[in-house]
Each structure stands twice: as C-alpha cells, then as structure tokens.
C-alpha cells in the first residue's frame, strides 16, 4: 500500500487494501508480536508494573491538569537557556514559523530525526516546495521517505515493510543491487546519511518530553541519529506537542522507565539526550541557534473535557498499536492520518475536530480493551472510542438507515412483550433460510456476518418461554435459599456495601 492522506477513501476501503496485502500483514504481525513479547519480559523483569503504571498515570494526570502552569515554567526556563520558543495554534502556523527560520538561514538542506508532530505539518513537502531538501535520518523514516509513504506506526514507521522491500528501495537509491541483508542495508543508509548530516543547515527533531523545571527537551533514540541532528547543524528546530511536558527530572526517571519498556521492551533506549538551550561557550558541540515550536493543533480542545482530557497523557510509546488485534491485521495506513492504532483512532477525529470526515476511524475497533491494558499511563482508549461514536451520532453524521435501525432497536427493547413478539416473528421468518440450526445465506442485513461465518438460528423455545417449567422443576424441594448459600450471600452483600461506603 502506498501513500495515505487520500480524502476520498473510507476506512473500509483502506482496510480492504491492507487486508489483501499479505506482505504487510505478515510484516506487521511479526514485529508487533516481537514487541509485545519484549514488553512483557521487560515489565516482568522490572516488577511492580501496575504500581509503575499508576505512578506514571498520576504524573501525567497532574501535569495535564496544570498544563498552563508547567508550560509557562518550561517556556520561561527554555528562554533563559537561550532557546527561541514559538507557539503555533495550527499546523499551518508551525509551517510558517519553520519557513521563516529556513529562509532567514538561507537553508538548502535539513536533516530530521523522528518526529510524529512534524507529520502533522507535512513539513517535508512544504520545505521541498521552497527548494529545501529535507532528509529523514531515522532508518525507518528514511525507508518510508524513499518509498514516498508516511509512517504506519508511531515507533516503527516502516513496520509494514519487509527486508526484501527495503533492499529494493535502497538498491534504487544506490544505483546498484543491494542484497536483503541487514548489515549491508544499514551500512548503505549510514554512509548515505553521514554526508547529509555534514552538509545540513538545519537539524529538526521531535521531543519525547519537555522538562518544566529545567527548560530541557528530551530525546529517546536508538540509532544515534537524533544526536547527530541536534549537534552537527548550526540551527536546530524542535517540534513539540504542547502536552509533552513533565514537571521535573524526577518525573523523567519514571517516564524513562516506562517509555522504552512499553515501546520496544528495552530497559532504556541506546541514547537519551536532554538538551538545554543552544551551544554554550564551554560546550564542544551543539547548535548555535535553537528553536522550539510548540504545537497546539487541536490539543487544547481536549483540555477541560472530562471524557477526553486524558488522551493528552499519551507518551507515544505505541504499546496500544502492538496490542491491538485490529492494527495487527490492517496496519497503520488504514487509519488514514498521522497516528494509527487505538490512540490514532481517538486522536484523528479529536485533533482534527471533524466528526464528519474522521469520526468513522473510531469504528476500527472491536472495543476489546487490549489498548487500555497495554497503555503505560492507563488511558481508557476503549471508552473514548465509544464517546467519539456517540459524538458522531449526536452531530448527525451517521447514515439514515443506521439511525432507523436503532430507532427499531429502541422500540423493540423498551418492552419485553415487543421483544418476545419480534423473536417469535423471527422464528417464523427464518424457516426458509435456517438449516440445521444455522443460517448461511449471504443476503440482506446478515451479509456482513455470513460472508465470514455462519449465523445461528433462533431457538425453537426461548429461555423466557421455558422458565416457568424450569423454575418449577428446579425449586421442587421448596422455595427457600439453602442456609449456607444465604450466609454466603449475606457476607458478599456486606462486603459489597463496605466497599461502596469506602
């Protein structure tokens, strides 16, 4: 599957393409399984995982609840360290700020380390339009840049590509045939990118965390490219989502414990850099000029919304993607925007604030809750997906046929007599299509179901039809609860009430 951002497709169309791409499905399954296993090993090895999760959650809850305070602390301290801090309300504004800096510097080339926020800006294309070459230096990002695609995973952007496909892309770039062997492919990228680091005018990074008390921005990376990007070029631009803040270095300890373990199952990433301002006189390297662009782009609309504020707690580890059984089958591009998986299904409609266009992304979930269970800061993503669906209904963006169907549901389910009548009607109706307790015909409203499995037939007698006889048989020895059962029930009820009053 090639590029995304095609506004004419629906999530079903995109899922259809992915589901028919065997390479993609195998590659995604292989890597997400590996990441799930490593995460489990790393969290078991750490011990007290639930306590760590709760601690991380509390830090994020507290920070987001006081985001105005911590954000202004961060900005004050970053400016004191010599950083140019910019605020961008929209992606467009962030693009303009970037363009102004690039023009002022007379930049010809830019090297980038991984930044999901920069994907919200489509900054690479915008820079190309003014003749500035932007090169991705994270290996995965480099692969998908060569392929003309967008990241399909928050942490592993080229998760959907296998080694053979990478070898083909690199061979084209190299002008010679490269074998599908990791050391050779990585060696090619290293040599190629080394030149780019040395000639770049601007280095661009994302920001994993921004520390309010010190004004530092923190980067986690495995390939060392983020360090090259943030030390070699004379100018550094860092993109930061406005919610990336944590209060202190102590909180970084918790985040550094949770993020790598949740993302890749590592105890710590190979590199963790905390950068406080541009190069000082006594520093041996670093940029002469440093800019941090703090992006809102729909984030502040989540603040104060009791159902969605917690989505800002996300630390972008990708654990929910790896745990998600839907992502496992369809990969990231199916979600249609920058972020994929369960977190993407929430962020896409919420940050874009467009239920008409993006509300349907919330349907790409069976609401199994694996995302919530995997989340290191316990974001109730499965609940939020339902809230988005409700919002879509409230704003009137669901099809008339569906609204009618649920009007019917309401009518039937508001009375047990009606429910019983409908079941009886169904029993008569199914006589022509049910065989041996199953319905196989792929027509009418059952089509979506029967295309993939048989449907069961309604029972000859429903439970409520049989209850009077069953009850008489079960309680033949009298109508009383057994004494020991009664004791147990009283005990359970007492425990329940105690818990309720706590």
């Amino acid at each position, binding site marked *: 599957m090639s590029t995304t951002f095609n506004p004419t497709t629906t999530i079903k169309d995109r899922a259809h393409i992915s589901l028919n791409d065997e390479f993609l499905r195998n590659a995604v399954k292989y890597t997400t399984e590996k990441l799930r296993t490593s995460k489990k090993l790393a969290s078991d090895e750490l011990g007290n995982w639930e306590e760590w999760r709760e601690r991380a959650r509390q830090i994020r809850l507290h920070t987001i609840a006081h985001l105005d305070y911590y954000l202004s602390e961060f900005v004050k301290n970053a400016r004191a360290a010599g950083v140019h801090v910019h605020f961008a309300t929209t992606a467009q504004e962030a693009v303009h700020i970037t363009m102004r800096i690039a023009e002022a510097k007379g930049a010809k080339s830019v090297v980038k380390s991984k930044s999901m926020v920069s994907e919200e800006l489509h900054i690479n294309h915008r820079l190309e339009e003014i003749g500035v070459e932007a090169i991705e230096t994270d290996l995965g990002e480099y692969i998908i840049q060569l392929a003309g695609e967008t990241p399909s995973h928050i942490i592993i952007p080229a998760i959907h590509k296998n080694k053979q496909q990478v070898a083909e892309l690199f061979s084209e770039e190299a002008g010679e045939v490269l074998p599908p062997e990791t050391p050779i492919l990585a060696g090619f990228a290293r040599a190629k990118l080394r030149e780019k680091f040395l000639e770049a005018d601007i280095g661009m990074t994302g920001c994993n965390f921004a520390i309010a008390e010190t004004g530092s921005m923190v980067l986690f990376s495995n390939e060392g490219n983020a360090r090259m990007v943030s030390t070699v070029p004379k100018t550094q631009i860092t993109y930061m989502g406005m919610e990336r803040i944590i209060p202190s270095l102590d909180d970084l300890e918790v985040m550094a414990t949770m993020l790598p373990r949740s993302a890749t199952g590592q105890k710590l990433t190979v590199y963790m850099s905390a950068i406080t301002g541009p190069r000082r006189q006594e520093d041996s390297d670093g940029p002469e000029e440093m800019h941090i662009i703090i992006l809102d782009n729909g984030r502040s609309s989540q603040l104060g919304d009791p159902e969605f504020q917690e989505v800002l707690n996300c630390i972008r580890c990708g654990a929910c993607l790896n745990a998600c059984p839907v992502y496992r089958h369809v990969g990231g591009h199916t979600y249609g925007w920058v972020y994929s998986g369960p977190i993407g299904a929430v962020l896409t409609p919420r940050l874009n604030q467009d239920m008409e266009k993006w509300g349907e992304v919330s349907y790409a979930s069976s609401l199994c809750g694996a995302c919530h269970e995997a989340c290191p800061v316990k974001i109730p993503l499965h609940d939020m997906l339902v809230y988005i669906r409700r919002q879509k209904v409230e704003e009137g963006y669901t099809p008339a046929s569906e609204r009618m169907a649920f009007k019917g549901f*309401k009518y039937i389910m508001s009375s047990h007599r009606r429910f019983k009548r409908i079941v009886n009607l169904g029993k008569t109706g199914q006589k022509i299509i049910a065989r041996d307790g199953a319905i196989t015909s792929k027509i009418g409203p059952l089509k979506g179901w029967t295309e993939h499995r048989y449907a069961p037939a309604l029972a000859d007698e429903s439970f409520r039809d049989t209850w009077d006889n069953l009850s008489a048989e079960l309680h033949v020895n009298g109508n009383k609860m057994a004494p020991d059962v009664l004791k*147990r029930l009283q005990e*359970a009820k007492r425990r329940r009430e105690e818990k309720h009053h706590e």
Partner: protein
Amino acid sequence: MKVSIFITCLSDAIYPQVGEAMSRILACQGVKLHFPEVQTCCGQPAFNSGYWDEARTSARTLLEAFDDSDFIVSPSGSCTGMIHHYYPSLFKDDPVMLTKAREFSGKIYEFSQFLVNVLGVTDIGAHFPHKVTYHPSCHGTRLLGIKEEPRQLLANVKGIEFVELPFAEDCCGFGGTFAVKMSEISGAMVEEKVQHVIETEAEVLVGMDMGCLMNIGGRLRYEGKQVRVMHLAELLHEGVKQKV
C-alpha cells in the same frame, strides 16, 4: 435475599440451553432463582454504536426488572461488563437514574464470578473426559477482571485435558455491531482465532460469552470444522450429568 437471572437477549432467543445449564448449576448449589420477565437487552449494541438515547431505553427495562434483586447473575461477561462498567456513564446526566445505575452495577455478576467469588464454589464435581481449550472473552477479563475464576472451575473438572489457546487474549473479532460494520476486519480476526483453536487440536472450545462463541463457532462451522463450542455453564452441567 433475592437472586435473579439476567439471561441476555442472545442467550434468551438463541442459546436458551446456556441459561438452563446455568440455572441448574446454581439451583444445585442451593440458590433460589428468579427470572424477572420485564428484562430485555442491556443496550450494548446501541451504546457501542454511539446511540446512547436508544441504549438508555433498553437499560431502563433492566433497572426496573432488577430493582428489588440483591444479586443478578448473567451468563455473559460482556453484558455484565456493559452494566458494571458503562451504566454509570450512560446515566451521568440523570441523578435519580444514576443512583440506580450505580447500585445495579455493583449487584451484577457474571456466572463464574458469582459461583467462585460469591458462593465460594470452585468444584461442582463435574467429569468431562475431553480435550478442551478456553477463549477468555475480552470484556469479562478486561472490564470485570475475571481471569482466574473460569480457569479454577475448569481445573477442578475430572478427566478434562486442558490445552492453552495460543494468543488466547486476542479478541475474536466479534465486537457486536463491529462484526457487521467492519465485517472484513472482523472476518480476518475470527479467521485467525479459528486457526489458533484448530492448532490446539481440542475437541471443545469453552468460553463465557455467547457473543464471542457465536462468532468463533459460526466460523468453525463455515470452515466445516468439528470443534464443539460450549459455554462454561454447559460444559460444567454436562460434566455433572456425565458423572453419574
């Protein structure tokens, strides 16, 4: 002390034998059971699709049906999860109903939860000499935290050969309306689940939710596979009968 059955619309209309097995097991333990007939559906199909007004109408029938019950037992982790986890948010803007919803959400138990945690029963003396694998349903495990209860009950069944299902905790792809709305994705999920069931070479797949079992069972039949699909209550009940 009143113990009532919440049968769920699925078990009521399609799988009454599950309700019967559950009732017989509980009655055998000495529980006097009630079945308030005004109950309909927990409202989950509407709720999950975003139609909360429609879901509330359905939910009100349950609040009325079980108002005077002390314990409500249901053969579905998903429907129980809906009530336990979501009824309070469904009625968050209606203080009177919210109080009732909160009270209700504390009184409802999934079958294995009730048997193990309330009645303290982990062995009902069943004998079931078959190779069995178990699919732990998502809502039961994740919304209600039922992890050990069904396993304890199965572990005490005599003659059973229990085999773990690979990727057991991955969703089977049911998800209610998801199965129809996103049928292709759901189809891929259930196809994989069935592959895993087949890999175990089990004769019986057991679960605690007829939604998931309807999905997996429907796929097994579609593929012409002979694996028998049973609710935990059915397996235990059959095991008690086989004992004699």
